[in-house]
């Protein structure tokens, strides 16, 4: 608990730098990532992240200092070169974008590793700490770093706010953007530049290897929660910042733990939870919906069974035991054990000792399903010209999804028929 207070009170200036720095970085790259994600160029971010390594190494070799501004400039140049190389490969060869991305990623990263090895063997690596760029080391952030990265993140936010509507149009419908005279090449260049900037800021804390996660994962997670781009941008940046603070906190509790990978772990967990839990699009919500529908079908089928048995016995309110019902041919696929107590609790059945009978409400509901089934069979034979022996299976499914409006239309279209194609009576409410 003390750790918690120490950390979140931000009283220690080192913690303050790290927390603020990573939160700025994560929010900025999440914002930019939304556009890369919607442009379906998720892997481009990964390639750029790997391609900034040679830039960092080169600017260190040239300047022999670890001045963050110089490293940023070096990283920025090779990152932009990587995007240029990918576009050039796609334009001038028969290779597709995925291949171009793969080539650029590995070639640039390979050069970066070679340069890094050269630096390490020259003996200056330990004081330079350049190898931390591979996996990131947020804990090493200084006040200058926070200023540089904070300003770049602010620049990213302002750029996106100012050009929001053009970026949205260029990503959604480039042809139309061109047609109304928007210089789409410039905006695509702008997206490239802000992607590289976001990467350059981010590698300090999460490293080149994991940087792509900070671009794409918050956007992917946010997409589950909303269908509106402004909300998606906001949610993604909040997710990103939250993951940054969370990851930093974990590595504060266990100092041997690297910050970057933990930030990525936190954002990944958030994305996976969104995948399961988000309303509407989440797996949980969708499977619950399916479950609920299956239960509705089961209940309606059991009431239908009671009604049809009552029809045969000419008494709708007779008591039946579970065994009696279970023997019936129509009960074969029904989970009666599960449905009977539930329907009793809902007031559609009445239980006396071990026997069940329909209540009035239950009879009404069962009767409606039987009516819909037989009406639909009529519709199929009359309007789709199906043979009477081909319509039952179809009606078994449709009877559960016909709404009262469609029910009324069916009745009118068929002019209230009294018998279905198998000469069974079609029960209407008003006749009782």
């Amino acid at each position, binding site marked *: 608990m003390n750790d918690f207070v120490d950390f979140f009170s931000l009283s220690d200036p080192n913690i303050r730098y790290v927390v603020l720095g990573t939160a700025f970085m994560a929010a900025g790259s999440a914002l930019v990532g939304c556009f890369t994600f919607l442009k379906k160029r998720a892997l481009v971010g990964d390639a750029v992240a790997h391609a900034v390594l040679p830039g960092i190494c080169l600017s260190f070799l040239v300047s022999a200092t670890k001045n963050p501004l110089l490293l940023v400039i070096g990283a920025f140049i090779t990152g932009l070169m990587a995007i240029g190389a990918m576009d050039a490969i796609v334009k001038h060869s028969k290779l597709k974008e995925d291949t171009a991305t793969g080539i650029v990623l590995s070639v640039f990263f390979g050069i970066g590793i070679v340069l890094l090895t050269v630096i390490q063997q020259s003996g200056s690596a330990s004081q330079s700490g350049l190898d931390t760029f591979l996996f990131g080391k947020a804990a090493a952030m200084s006040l200058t770093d926070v200023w540089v990265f904070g300003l770049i993140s602010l620049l990213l936010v302002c750029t996106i706010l100012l050009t929001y509507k053009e970026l949205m*149009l260029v990503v*959604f*419908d480039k*042809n139309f953007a061109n*047609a109304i005279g*928007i210089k789409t090449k410039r905006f695509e260049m702008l997206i490239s530049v802000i992607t590289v900037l976001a990467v350059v800021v981010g590698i300090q804390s999460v490293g080149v290897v994991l940087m792509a996660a900070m671009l794409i994962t918050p956007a992917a997670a946010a997409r589950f929660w909303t269908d509106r781009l402004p909300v998606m941008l906001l949610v993604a940046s909040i997710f990103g910042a939250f993951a940054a603070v969370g990851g930093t906190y974990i590595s504060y509790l266990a100092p041997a733990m690297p910050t970057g990978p933990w930030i990525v772990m936190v954002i990944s967990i958030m994305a996976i939870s969104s995948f399961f839990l988000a309303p509407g699009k989440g797996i949980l919500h969708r499977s619950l919906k399916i479950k609920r529908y299956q239960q509705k079908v089961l209940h309606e089928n059991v009431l239908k069974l009671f009604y049809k048995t009552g029809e045969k016995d000419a008494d709708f309110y007779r008591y039946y035991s579970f065994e009696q019902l279970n023997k019936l041919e129509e009960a074969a696929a029904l989970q009666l054990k599960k449905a009977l107590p539930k329907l009793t609790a809902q007031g559609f059945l009445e239980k006396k000792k071990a026997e069940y009978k329909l209540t009035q409400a239950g009879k009404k509901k069962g009767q409606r399903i039987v009516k819909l089934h037989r009406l639909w069979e009529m519709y199929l034979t009359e309007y789709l010209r199906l043979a009477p022996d081909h319509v039952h299976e179809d009606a078994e499914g449709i009877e559960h999804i016909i709404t009262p409006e469609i029910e009324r239309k069916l009745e009118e279209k068929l002019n209230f028929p009294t018998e279905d194609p198998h000469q069974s009576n079609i029960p209407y409410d008003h006749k009782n």
Partner: protein
Amino acid sequence: MIKQVKDPILEIHDLSVSYQKKPVLWAIDLTLPKGVVVGIIGPNGAGKSTLIKAIMGLIPPDSGFVKIFGESLEAVRHKISYVPQRESVDWDFPASVEEVVMMGRYNKIGLFKKPRKADREVVADCLLKVNLEAFAKRQISQLSGGQQQRVFIARALAQEADLYFMDEPFAGVDAATERAIVNLLKEMTASGKTVVVVHHDLNSAAHYFDWTILLNLKLVASAPVKEAFTAQLLQETYGGKLTLLTELGEILAKNEIPNREKKRY
């Protein structure tokens, strides 16, 4: 049957276009009058979409030029509107119907600026014209194909242009929507607008359009419907496969030879 008009709203002069080095249009030369619904008609792969894309400057031509209202495209862009093919975008994009229609106002709003009240009113008005006012806040992926098509048309209307290019607005659209769109096009021409529509159904073409462009890699006809729809011209458009042009095109594409020796653009 290529009928030239005086004071044309659109003049295409000797326009040749290639797509990945393969010639798709050969020396198109035509003029269109003002205030009509024009149908660009031809079989699959005839270059219909390519023609309007080239007019809109979305594909650079190998040769020739286009003049609209007697001026260059850049000078009159604000008076031209474009409806791309519906499948050309990802409808899963997180945007609402009104946000997409608002895109038609972007060049009037200007860079770095937000939509003004007047823009929102134009958008609402355009949604009303295509009967989508109840769907304004709906996410675009939740619409049917016909509704999505109407969103694109509303976006074009929001541009308040004088000349409209529509790429296959009837593709994948139900009969009711098709009728509604046709009526809308007629209303538009009645108020002096000109609409150019890419279309591939011959049967309906005679009823929908005042003027037709018959196209199959080369221009077969450009004339009022009654004059263009002759058995011979239709046969020339749909019947013969133009094997010579196709064969030559393939040779050019295979050897990566530019169609024209000197690019004028």
